[in-house]
Protein backbone atom coordinates (compact mmCIF):
# COMPACT_ATOMS: atom_id res chain seq x y z
CA UNK A 1 0.00 0.00 0.00
CA UNK A 2 1.46 3.39 -0.94
CA UNK A 3 2.08 5.65 2.04
CA UNK A 4 1.56 2.88 4.54
CA UNK A 5 4.36 1.65 6.75
CA UNK A 6 4.03 -1.36 9.03
CA UNK A 7 0.57 -2.66 9.82
CA UNK A 8 -2.61 -0.64 9.99
CA UNK A 9 -6.12 -2.05 10.34
CA UNK A 10 -7.57 -2.33 6.82
CA UNK A 11 -10.27 0.24 7.50
CA UNK A 12 -7.66 2.75 8.64
CA UNK A 13 -6.36 3.16 5.11
CA UNK A 14 -8.64 6.12 4.63
CA UNK A 15 -7.97 9.18 6.76
CA UNK A 16 -11.23 10.36 8.28
CA UNK A 17 -10.65 13.98 9.16
CA UNK A 18 -9.08 16.28 6.63
CA UNK A 19 -7.53 19.73 6.60
CA UNK A 20 -11.02 21.17 7.08
CA UNK A 21 -11.16 19.68 10.55
CA UNK A 22 -7.80 21.34 11.19
CA UNK A 23 -9.41 24.67 10.36
CA UNK A 24 -12.26 24.12 12.75
CA UNK A 25 -10.34 24.25 16.05
CA UNK A 26 -8.05 26.91 14.55
CA UNK A 27 -10.97 29.18 13.71
CA UNK A 28 -12.92 28.63 16.94
CA UNK A 29 -9.65 29.23 18.78
CA UNK A 30 -9.32 32.62 17.12
CA UNK A 31 -12.91 33.41 18.14
CA UNK A 32 -12.37 32.49 21.77
CA UNK A 33 -9.01 34.26 21.95
CA UNK A 34 -10.26 37.45 20.31
CA UNK A 35 -13.21 37.56 22.63
CA UNK A 36 -11.08 37.08 25.70
CA UNK A 37 -8.83 39.93 24.62
CA UNK A 38 -11.91 42.13 24.22
CA UNK A 39 -13.13 41.10 27.65
CA UNK A 40 -9.86 42.24 29.21
CA UNK A 41 -10.77 45.78 28.43
CA UNK A 42 -14.38 45.46 29.46
CA UNK A 43 -14.23 43.38 32.60
CA UNK A 44 -10.75 44.02 33.87
CA UNK A 45 -10.77 47.59 32.67
CA UNK A 46 -7.42 47.48 30.90
CA UNK A 47 -7.64 50.87 29.23
CA UNK A 48 -4.52 50.35 27.12
CA UNK A 49 -6.08 47.71 24.88
CA UNK A 50 -9.21 49.80 24.24
CA UNK A 51 -8.32 50.61 20.60
CA UNK A 52 -8.72 46.94 19.78
CA UNK A 53 -11.89 46.28 21.76
CA UNK A 54 -14.43 46.62 18.98
CA UNK A 55 -12.07 45.22 16.36
CA UNK A 56 -11.69 42.11 18.52
CA UNK A 57 -15.44 41.70 18.89
CA UNK A 58 -16.05 42.04 15.16
CA UNK A 59 -13.20 39.64 14.39
CA UNK A 60 -14.63 37.11 16.80
CA UNK A 61 -18.00 37.40 15.08
CA UNK A 62 -16.52 37.12 11.58
CA UNK A 63 -14.62 33.97 12.48
CA UNK A 64 -17.49 32.48 14.43
CA UNK A 65 -19.76 32.83 11.40
CA UNK A 66 -17.29 30.77 9.38
CA UNK A 67 -16.51 28.21 12.11
CA UNK A 68 -19.28 25.71 11.27
CA UNK A 69 -18.62 25.81 7.53
CA UNK A 70 -15.63 23.43 7.48
CA UNK A 71 -17.62 20.97 9.57
CA UNK A 72 -20.57 21.30 7.26
CA UNK A 73 -18.43 20.78 4.16
CA UNK A 74 -16.83 17.72 5.66
CA UNK A 75 -20.06 15.89 6.53
CA UNK A 76 -21.10 12.98 4.35
CA UNK A 77 -24.65 14.30 4.55
CA UNK A 78 -24.60 18.05 5.20
CA UNK A 79 -28.36 18.20 4.72
CA UNK A 80 -28.80 16.14 7.87
CA UNK A 81 -26.78 18.45 10.10
CA UNK A 82 -29.96 19.86 11.61
CA UNK A 83 -30.27 16.54 13.46
CA UNK A 84 -27.59 17.88 15.82
CA UNK A 85 -30.23 20.29 17.08
CA UNK A 86 -33.20 17.99 16.76
CA UNK A 87 -31.91 14.89 18.50
CA UNK A 88 -28.65 15.84 20.21
CA UNK A 89 -27.07 12.88 21.96
CA UNK A 90 -26.32 14.13 25.44
CA UNK A 91 -23.40 11.76 25.87
CA UNK A 92 -21.69 13.01 22.73
CA UNK A 93 -19.27 15.92 23.00
CA UNK A 94 -19.89 16.77 19.37
CA UNK A 95 -23.66 17.00 19.81
CA UNK A 96 -23.22 19.91 22.17
CA UNK A 97 -21.47 21.91 19.47
CA UNK A 98 -24.68 23.26 18.02
CA UNK A 99 -25.87 24.57 21.33
CA UNK A 100 -22.56 25.93 22.53
CA UNK A 101 -22.20 27.59 19.15
CA UNK A 102 -25.65 29.16 19.09
CA UNK A 103 -25.31 30.32 22.67
CA UNK A 104 -22.00 31.91 21.93
CA UNK A 105 -23.09 33.46 18.64
CA UNK A 106 -26.45 34.82 19.67
CA UNK A 107 -26.30 35.45 23.37
CA UNK A 108 -22.71 36.47 23.73
CA UNK A 109 -21.35 37.97 20.53
CA UNK A 110 -24.35 39.36 18.67
CA UNK A 111 -25.96 40.80 21.79
CA UNK A 112 -22.76 42.29 23.07
CA UNK A 113 -21.90 43.87 19.74
CA UNK A 114 -25.44 45.13 19.36
CA UNK A 115 -25.50 46.74 22.78
CA UNK A 116 -22.08 48.25 22.28
CA UNK A 117 -22.92 49.67 18.84
CA UNK A 118 -26.50 50.67 19.45
CA UNK A 119 -25.74 54.37 19.71
CA UNK A 120 -23.76 54.29 16.45
CA UNK A 121 -26.48 52.29 14.74
CA UNK A 122 -29.17 54.76 15.73
CA UNK A 123 -27.05 57.72 14.63
CA UNK A 124 -26.41 56.06 11.28
CA UNK A 125 -30.08 55.23 10.94
CA UNK A 126 -30.96 58.89 11.44
CA UNK A 127 -28.30 60.08 9.03
CA UNK A 128 -28.84 57.59 6.19
CA UNK A 129 -31.37 57.18 3.42
CA UNK A 130 -32.70 54.42 1.22
CA UNK A 131 -31.55 50.87 1.78
CA UNK A 132 -28.97 51.82 4.40
CA UNK A 133 -31.71 53.52 6.37
CA UNK A 134 -33.79 50.35 6.28
CA UNK A 135 -30.83 48.23 7.30
CA UNK A 136 -29.77 50.38 10.23
CA UNK A 137 -33.39 50.80 11.28
CA UNK A 138 -33.80 47.06 11.39
CA UNK A 139 -30.54 46.68 13.30
CA UNK A 140 -31.81 49.22 15.83
CA UNK A 141 -35.09 47.30 16.00
CA UNK A 142 -36.69 50.62 15.11
CA UNK A 143 -36.08 52.00 18.53
CA UNK A 144 -34.09 55.22 18.50
CA UNK A 145 -33.87 55.79 22.19
CA UNK A 146 -30.25 56.66 22.87
CA UNK A 147 -30.89 58.73 25.90
CA UNK A 148 -28.22 58.63 28.53
CA UNK A 149 -30.29 56.41 30.78
CA UNK A 150 -30.98 53.95 27.96
CA UNK A 151 -27.28 53.75 27.06
CA UNK A 152 -26.39 53.26 30.69
CA UNK A 153 -28.78 50.36 30.77
CA UNK A 154 -27.10 48.91 27.66
CA UNK A 155 -23.70 49.31 29.26
CA UNK A 156 -24.74 47.46 32.40
CA UNK A 157 -26.27 44.66 30.41
CA UNK A 158 -23.21 44.52 28.14
CA UNK A 159 -20.90 44.19 31.12
CA UNK A 160 -23.02 41.34 32.47
CA UNK A 161 -22.84 39.67 29.05
CA UNK A 162 -19.07 39.89 29.02
CA UNK A 163 -18.95 38.31 32.43
CA UNK A 164 -21.05 35.44 31.04
CA UNK A 165 -19.03 35.60 27.83
CA UNK A 166 -15.68 34.72 29.36
CA UNK A 167 -16.78 31.33 30.71
CA UNK A 168 -18.67 30.87 27.43
CA UNK A 169 -15.47 31.43 25.47
CA UNK A 170 -13.73 28.97 27.77
CA UNK A 171 -16.57 26.54 27.20
CA UNK A 172 -16.50 26.99 23.43
CA UNK A 173 -12.87 26.17 23.06
CA UNK A 174 -12.37 23.93 26.05
CA UNK A 175 -15.11 21.80 24.63
CA UNK A 176 -13.42 21.65 21.22
CA UNK A 177 -10.43 20.23 23.06
CA UNK A 178 -12.69 17.78 24.84
CA UNK A 179 -13.92 16.44 21.48
CA UNK A 180 -10.39 15.19 20.93
CA UNK A 181 -9.29 14.66 24.52
CA UNK A 182 -12.17 12.31 25.31
CA UNK A 183 -11.36 9.72 22.63
CA UNK A 184 -9.81 6.94 24.66
CA UNK A 185 -9.08 4.91 21.55
CA UNK A 186 -6.53 7.50 20.45
CA UNK A 187 -3.60 8.01 22.83
CA UNK A 188 -2.37 11.02 20.88
CA UNK A 189 -5.60 12.81 21.77
CA UNK A 190 -6.72 11.19 24.97
CA UNK A 191 -5.50 13.45 27.76
CA UNK A 192 -7.40 15.60 30.24
CA UNK A 193 -4.93 18.36 29.39
CA UNK A 194 -6.31 18.60 25.87
CA UNK A 195 -9.18 21.04 26.62
CA UNK A 196 -6.95 23.31 28.66
CA UNK A 197 -4.12 23.20 26.12
CA UNK A 198 -6.66 24.04 23.43
CA UNK A 199 -8.00 26.87 25.52
CA UNK A 200 -4.66 28.52 26.14
CA UNK A 201 -3.50 28.04 22.57
CA UNK A 202 -6.82 29.61 21.55
CA UNK A 203 -6.15 32.64 23.72
CA UNK A 204 -2.65 32.90 22.28
CA UNK A 205 -3.84 32.65 18.67
CA UNK A 206 -6.68 35.12 19.24
CA UNK A 207 -4.41 37.70 20.80
CA UNK A 208 -1.82 37.29 18.05
CA UNK A 209 -4.53 37.59 15.41
CA UNK A 210 -5.92 40.82 16.85
CA UNK A 211 -2.42 42.24 17.24
CA UNK A 212 -1.74 41.64 13.55
CA UNK A 213 -5.16 42.86 12.47
CA UNK A 214 -4.65 46.02 14.46
CA UNK A 215 -1.37 46.68 12.67
CA UNK A 216 -3.02 46.01 9.31
CA UNK A 217 -6.02 48.26 9.99
CA UNK A 218 -3.76 51.09 11.18
CA UNK A 219 -1.69 50.74 8.06
CA UNK A 220 -4.76 50.68 5.82
CA UNK A 221 -6.28 53.68 7.57
CA UNK A 222 -2.91 55.48 7.62
CA UNK A 223 -3.16 56.27 11.32
CA UNK A 224 -0.31 55.85 13.78
CA UNK A 225 -0.16 52.67 15.81
CA UNK A 226 -1.03 53.20 19.46
CA UNK A 227 2.20 51.91 20.99
CA UNK A 228 1.00 51.47 24.60
CA UNK A 229 -1.81 49.38 23.18
CA UNK A 230 0.39 47.01 21.16
CA UNK A 231 2.95 46.86 23.99
CA UNK A 232 0.21 45.72 26.35
CA UNK A 233 -1.18 43.20 23.88
CA UNK A 234 2.31 41.83 23.29
CA UNK A 235 2.74 41.49 27.05
CA UNK A 236 -0.47 39.49 27.33
CA UNK A 237 0.54 37.42 24.36
CA UNK A 238 3.83 36.62 26.04
CA UNK A 239 2.27 35.53 29.33
CA UNK A 240 -0.55 33.56 27.74
CA UNK A 241 2.00 31.88 25.52
CA UNK A 242 4.16 30.97 28.52
CA UNK A 243 1.22 29.22 30.14
CA UNK A 244 0.34 27.49 26.89
CA UNK A 245 3.91 26.38 26.30
CA UNK A 246 4.25 25.09 29.87
CA UNK A 247 1.09 23.03 29.49
CA UNK A 248 2.24 21.56 26.20
CA UNK A 249 5.64 20.75 27.66
CA UNK A 250 3.96 19.17 30.67
CA UNK A 251 1.98 16.97 28.30
CA UNK A 252 5.11 16.07 26.35
CA UNK A 253 7.24 15.30 29.40
CA UNK A 254 4.46 13.27 30.92
CA UNK A 255 4.24 11.17 27.77
CA UNK A 256 7.99 10.77 27.54
CA UNK A 257 8.28 9.73 31.15
CA UNK A 258 5.29 7.39 31.30
CA UNK A 259 6.22 5.84 27.95
CA UNK A 260 3.09 3.70 27.80
CA UNK A 261 2.24 1.17 25.11
CA UNK A 262 1.60 3.84 22.51
CA UNK A 263 4.84 5.69 23.18
CA UNK A 264 7.04 4.00 20.61
CA UNK A 265 4.51 4.57 17.85
CA UNK A 266 3.99 8.22 18.74
CA UNK A 267 7.68 8.85 19.25
CA UNK A 268 8.44 7.40 15.85
CA UNK A 269 5.69 9.47 14.27
CA UNK A 270 6.94 12.73 15.78
CA UNK A 271 10.47 11.99 14.65
CA UNK A 272 9.48 11.16 11.08
CA UNK A 273 6.13 12.14 9.59
CA UNK A 274 5.42 14.98 11.97
CA UNK A 275 8.97 16.23 12.28
CA UNK A 276 8.53 19.30 10.10
CA UNK A 277 5.11 20.30 11.34
CA UNK A 278 5.65 19.43 15.00
CA UNK A 279 9.30 20.01 15.85
CA UNK A 280 10.23 22.65 13.29
CA UNK A 281 7.03 24.60 12.66
CA UNK A 282 5.15 24.19 15.93
CA UNK A 283 7.78 24.01 18.62
CA UNK A 284 10.82 25.82 17.26
CA UNK A 285 9.53 28.43 14.81
CA UNK A 286 5.99 28.70 16.14
CA UNK A 287 6.68 28.72 19.87
CA UNK A 288 10.28 29.12 20.95
CA UNK A 289 11.20 31.88 18.51
CA UNK A 290 8.15 34.08 19.25
CA UNK A 291 8.57 33.43 22.96
CA UNK A 292 12.18 34.60 22.80
CA UNK A 293 11.20 37.64 20.71
CA UNK A 294 8.37 38.58 23.05
CA UNK A 295 10.43 37.87 26.14
CA UNK A 296 13.21 40.04 24.78
CA UNK A 297 10.78 42.88 24.21
CA UNK A 298 9.76 42.63 27.85
CA UNK A 299 13.37 42.90 29.01
CA UNK A 300 14.93 45.33 26.56
CA UNK A 301 13.41 48.65 25.54
CA UNK A 302 13.71 48.68 21.78
CA UNK A 303 12.92 51.63 19.58
CA UNK A 304 9.29 51.84 18.46
CA UNK A 305 9.99 50.81 14.90
CA UNK A 306 11.95 47.75 16.07
CA UNK A 307 9.19 46.86 18.49
CA UNK A 308 6.55 47.03 15.81
CA UNK A 309 8.56 44.81 13.48
CA UNK A 310 9.23 42.43 16.34
CA UNK A 311 5.57 42.20 17.27
CA UNK A 312 4.49 41.60 13.69
CA UNK A 313 7.08 38.87 13.32
CA UNK A 314 6.24 37.26 16.67
CA UNK A 315 2.49 37.45 15.98
CA UNK A 316 2.83 35.88 12.55
CA UNK A 317 5.04 33.08 13.82
CA UNK A 318 2.63 32.48 16.69
CA UNK A 319 -0.32 32.10 14.34
CA UNK A 320 1.64 29.72 12.17
CA UNK A 321 2.71 27.76 15.25
CA UNK A 322 -0.84 27.43 16.55
CA UNK A 323 -2.05 26.36 13.13
CA UNK A 324 0.71 23.75 13.07
CA UNK A 325 -0.40 22.64 16.53
CA UNK A 326 -3.97 22.12 15.30
CA UNK A 327 -2.60 20.26 12.31
CA UNK A 328 -0.46 18.02 14.47
CA UNK A 329 -3.36 17.22 16.76
CA UNK A 330 -5.95 16.53 14.07
CA UNK A 331 -3.84 15.02 11.30
CA UNK A 332 -1.13 13.62 13.57
CA UNK A 333 -3.76 11.79 15.57
CA UNK A 334 -4.72 9.86 12.47
CA UNK A 335 -1.33 9.01 11.03
CA UNK A 336 -0.63 6.08 13.32
CA UNK A 337 -2.67 2.92 13.49
CA UNK A 338 -4.66 2.17 16.60
CA UNK A 339 -2.76 -1.11 16.53
CA UNK A 340 0.40 0.98 17.21
CA UNK A 341 2.08 -1.15 14.57
CA UNK A 342 2.05 1.12 11.59
CA UNK A 343 1.56 4.50 9.98
CA UNK A 344 -0.34 5.98 7.13
CA UNK A 345 0.02 9.24 5.21
CA UNK A 346 -2.28 12.18 4.70
CA UNK A 347 -2.47 13.18 1.08
CA UNK A 348 -4.11 16.56 0.83
CA UNK A 349 -6.18 17.02 -2.27
CA UNK A 350 -6.57 20.36 -3.95
CA UNK A 351 -9.81 21.24 -5.67
CA UNK A 352 -12.06 18.72 -3.95
CA UNK A 353 -14.69 19.24 -1.32
CA UNK A 354 -12.23 18.63 1.49
CA UNK A 355 -9.13 19.82 -0.32
CA UNK A 356 -6.72 22.69 0.05
CA UNK A 357 -8.73 25.07 -2.13
CA UNK A 358 -11.88 25.11 0.05
CA UNK A 359 -9.58 25.40 3.07
CA UNK A 360 -7.97 28.50 1.62
CA UNK A 361 -11.36 29.96 0.71
CA UNK A 362 -12.60 29.26 4.24
CA UNK A 363 -9.56 31.05 5.66
CA UNK A 364 -10.13 34.10 3.46
CA UNK A 365 -13.87 34.23 4.08
CA UNK A 366 -13.69 35.54 7.69
CA UNK A 367 -11.60 38.47 6.51
CA UNK A 368 -14.18 39.30 3.84
CA UNK A 369 -16.91 39.14 6.46
CA UNK A 370 -14.79 41.27 8.77
CA UNK A 371 -14.40 43.83 5.97
CA UNK A 372 -18.18 44.01 5.57
CA UNK A 373 -18.69 44.24 9.30
CA UNK A 374 -16.13 47.02 9.61
CA UNK A 375 -17.84 48.94 6.82
CA UNK A 376 -21.22 48.42 8.45
CA UNK A 377 -20.10 49.05 12.00
CA UNK A 378 -16.83 50.96 12.00
CA UNK A 379 -14.92 49.96 15.11
CA UNK A 380 -13.18 53.29 15.39
CA UNK A 381 -14.84 56.43 16.73
CA UNK A 382 -15.63 59.67 14.97
CA UNK A 383 -12.21 61.25 14.81
CA UNK A 384 -11.87 61.50 18.56
CA UNK A 385 -9.51 58.59 19.02
CA UNK A 386 -10.49 55.00 19.26
CA UNK A 387 -12.86 55.18 22.16
CA UNK A 388 -15.85 52.91 22.49
CA UNK A 389 -19.08 54.61 23.35
CA UNK A 390 -19.83 52.64 26.45
CA UNK A 391 -16.87 54.12 28.27
CA UNK A 392 -18.59 57.46 28.52
CA UNK A 393 -20.85 56.29 31.31
Amino acid sequence: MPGVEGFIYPNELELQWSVLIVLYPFITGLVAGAFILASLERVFNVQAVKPTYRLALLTALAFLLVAPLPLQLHLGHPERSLEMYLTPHTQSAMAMFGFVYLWYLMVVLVLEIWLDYRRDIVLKWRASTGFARLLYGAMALWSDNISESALKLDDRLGRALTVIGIPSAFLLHGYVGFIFGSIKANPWWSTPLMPIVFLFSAIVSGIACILLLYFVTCWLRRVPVDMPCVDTIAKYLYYAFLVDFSLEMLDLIHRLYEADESFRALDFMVKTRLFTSQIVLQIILGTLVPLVLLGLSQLVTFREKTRRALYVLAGSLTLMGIFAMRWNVVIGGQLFSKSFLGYTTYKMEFATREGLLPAIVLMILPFVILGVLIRLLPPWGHGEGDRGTHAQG
Partner: protein
Amino acid sequence: MKPRASDYVHLVRMAGLFAVGITAFLVLRWLMVPADFGELGHYRTGAVPDNMARPIVYAGQAVCVECHADVAELRARGKHVRVACESCHGALAAHASNPDGQKPVRPDPRRTCISCHSANISKPKSFPQVVPEEHAPEGSCAACHAVHNPKIS
Protein backbone atom coordinates in the same frame (compact mmCIF):
# COMPACT_ATOMS: atom_id res chain seq x y z
CA MET B 1 -30.52 58.69 36.46
CA LYS B 2 -33.29 56.19 36.81
CA PRO B 3 -34.24 54.43 33.57
CA ARG B 4 -37.74 55.04 32.33
CA ALA B 5 -40.02 52.49 30.68
CA SER B 6 -39.15 53.81 27.21
CA ASP B 7 -35.48 53.02 27.82
CA TYR B 8 -36.35 49.34 27.77
CA VAL B 9 -38.17 49.30 24.43
CA HIS B 10 -35.24 48.04 22.34
CA LEU B 11 -34.37 45.43 24.95
CA VAL B 12 -37.91 44.14 25.06
CA ARG B 13 -37.94 43.96 21.27
CA MET B 14 -34.68 42.00 21.28
CA ALA B 15 -36.05 39.67 23.93
CA GLY B 16 -39.11 39.25 21.70
CA LEU B 17 -36.85 38.30 18.78
CA PHE B 18 -35.15 35.68 20.93
CA ALA B 19 -38.52 34.36 22.07
CA VAL B 20 -39.65 34.07 18.43
CA GLY B 21 -36.40 32.27 17.56
CA ILE B 22 -36.66 29.82 20.42
CA THR B 23 -40.33 29.15 19.66
CA ALA B 24 -39.54 28.57 16.00
CA PHE B 25 -36.85 26.13 17.04
CA LEU B 26 -39.20 24.24 19.34
CA VAL B 27 -41.87 24.05 16.65
CA LEU B 28 -39.31 22.88 14.11
CA ARG B 29 -38.09 20.27 16.52
CA TRP B 30 -41.60 19.08 17.22
CA LEU B 31 -42.27 18.82 13.48
CA MET B 32 -39.04 17.24 12.40
CA VAL B 33 -37.98 14.73 15.03
CA PRO B 34 -39.04 11.27 13.84
CA ALA B 35 -42.08 10.13 15.81
CA ASP B 36 -40.44 6.90 16.94
CA PHE B 37 -37.22 8.53 18.12
CA GLY B 38 -36.19 7.83 21.68
CA GLU B 39 -38.68 5.08 22.49
CA LEU B 40 -36.08 2.42 23.27
CA GLY B 41 -33.00 4.57 23.55
CA HIS B 42 -31.42 7.49 21.76
CA TYR B 43 -32.31 6.25 18.28
CA ARG B 44 -35.14 5.73 15.84
CA THR B 45 -37.01 2.58 16.76
CA GLY B 46 -37.56 2.12 13.04
CA ALA B 47 -33.82 1.68 12.53
CA VAL B 48 -34.09 -1.80 14.05
CA PRO B 49 -36.50 -3.21 11.43
CA ASP B 50 -34.47 -1.31 8.82
CA ASN B 51 -31.48 -3.40 9.83
CA MET B 52 -33.60 -6.55 9.78
CA ALA B 53 -34.99 -5.90 6.32
CA ARG B 54 -31.84 -6.67 4.31
CA PRO B 55 -32.25 -9.62 1.93
CA ILE B 56 -30.64 -12.88 2.97
CA VAL B 57 -27.94 -14.09 0.58
CA TYR B 58 -26.60 -17.18 2.35
CA ALA B 59 -29.52 -19.52 2.85
CA GLY B 60 -28.04 -21.34 5.81
CA GLN B 61 -27.20 -24.96 6.38
CA ALA B 62 -30.63 -26.00 7.62
CA VAL B 63 -32.40 -24.94 4.44
CA CYS B 64 -29.95 -26.77 2.15
CA VAL B 65 -30.30 -30.00 4.08
CA GLU B 66 -34.03 -29.97 3.70
CA CYS B 67 -33.68 -30.92 0.04
CA HIS B 68 -30.17 -32.33 -0.07
CA ALA B 69 -30.43 -34.79 2.78
CA ASP B 70 -28.48 -37.38 0.75
CA VAL B 71 -25.41 -35.16 0.45
CA ALA B 72 -25.71 -34.19 4.09
CA GLU B 73 -25.70 -37.84 5.03
CA LEU B 74 -22.64 -38.52 2.92
CA ARG B 75 -20.89 -35.57 4.49
CA ALA B 76 -21.91 -36.60 8.00
CA ARG B 77 -19.75 -39.71 7.72
CA GLY B 78 -16.55 -37.81 6.94
CA LYS B 79 -14.35 -35.08 8.22
CA HIS B 80 -16.26 -32.33 6.43
CA VAL B 81 -19.20 -32.93 8.72
CA ARG B 82 -19.07 -29.46 10.14
CA VAL B 83 -18.30 -27.61 6.91
CA ALA B 84 -21.49 -25.86 5.85
CA CYS B 85 -22.68 -26.29 2.26
CA GLU B 86 -22.18 -22.62 1.44
CA SER B 87 -18.57 -22.61 2.63
CA CYS B 88 -17.66 -24.25 -0.66
CA HIS B 89 -20.74 -23.72 -2.82
CA GLY B 90 -21.12 -20.03 -2.11
CA ALA B 91 -24.25 -18.05 -1.37
CA LEU B 92 -27.35 -20.03 -2.25
CA ALA B 93 -30.38 -18.16 -0.98
CA ALA B 94 -31.38 -17.40 -4.57
CA HIS B 95 -31.27 -21.12 -5.29
CA ALA B 96 -33.23 -21.95 -2.14
CA SER B 97 -35.93 -19.50 -3.18
CA ASN B 98 -36.10 -20.82 -6.70
CA PRO B 99 -34.54 -24.31 -6.72
CA ASP B 100 -35.20 -25.05 -10.40
CA GLY B 101 -34.72 -21.62 -11.91
CA GLN B 102 -31.51 -20.67 -10.08
CA LYS B 103 -29.06 -23.47 -10.50
CA PRO B 104 -25.85 -22.86 -8.55
CA VAL B 105 -22.48 -23.02 -10.28
CA ARG B 106 -20.54 -26.10 -9.33
CA PRO B 107 -17.39 -24.99 -7.50
CA ASP B 108 -14.03 -25.76 -9.10
CA PRO B 109 -12.81 -28.56 -6.83
CA ARG B 110 -9.12 -27.79 -7.01
CA ARG B 111 -9.45 -24.08 -6.29
CA THR B 112 -11.95 -24.67 -3.55
CA CYS B 113 -9.89 -27.35 -1.83
CA ILE B 114 -6.72 -25.29 -2.04
CA SER B 115 -8.35 -22.27 -0.43
CA CYS B 116 -8.37 -24.23 2.84
CA HIS B 117 -5.89 -27.07 2.47
CA SER B 118 -2.94 -25.40 0.82
CA ALA B 119 -0.04 -25.60 3.24
CA ASN B 120 0.84 -22.53 5.23
CA ILE B 121 3.14 -22.24 8.17
CA SER B 122 0.62 -20.07 10.00
CA LYS B 123 -2.17 -22.62 9.97
CA PRO B 124 -2.82 -24.72 13.04
CA LYS B 125 -0.56 -27.79 12.79
CA SER B 126 -3.43 -30.23 13.28
CA PHE B 127 -5.20 -28.94 10.19
CA PRO B 128 -4.65 -31.19 7.16
CA GLN B 129 -2.64 -29.30 4.55
CA VAL B 130 -0.68 -30.12 1.42
CA VAL B 131 1.56 -28.28 -0.97
CA PRO B 132 -0.69 -28.56 -4.02
CA GLU B 133 2.17 -28.49 -6.55
CA GLU B 134 3.85 -31.44 -4.86
CA HIS B 135 0.79 -33.33 -3.67
CA ALA B 136 -1.01 -33.26 -7.00
CA PRO B 137 0.62 -31.02 -9.61
CA GLU B 138 -2.28 -31.27 -11.97
CA GLY B 139 -5.85 -32.30 -12.15
CA SER B 140 -8.77 -32.21 -9.84
CA CYS B 141 -8.59 -33.10 -6.17
CA ALA B 142 -11.91 -34.82 -6.73
CA ALA B 143 -10.18 -37.45 -8.83
CA CYS B 144 -9.00 -39.11 -5.62
CA HIS B 145 -11.03 -37.48 -2.85
CA ALA B 146 -14.79 -37.48 -2.69
CA VAL B 147 -15.35 -33.85 -1.88
CA HIS B 148 -18.13 -34.43 0.61
CA ASN B 149 -16.24 -37.18 2.39
CA PRO B 150 -12.62 -36.68 1.41
CA LYS B 151 -10.99 -39.58 3.23
CA ILE B 152 -9.47 -42.13 0.80
CA SER B 153 -10.35 -45.51 2.16
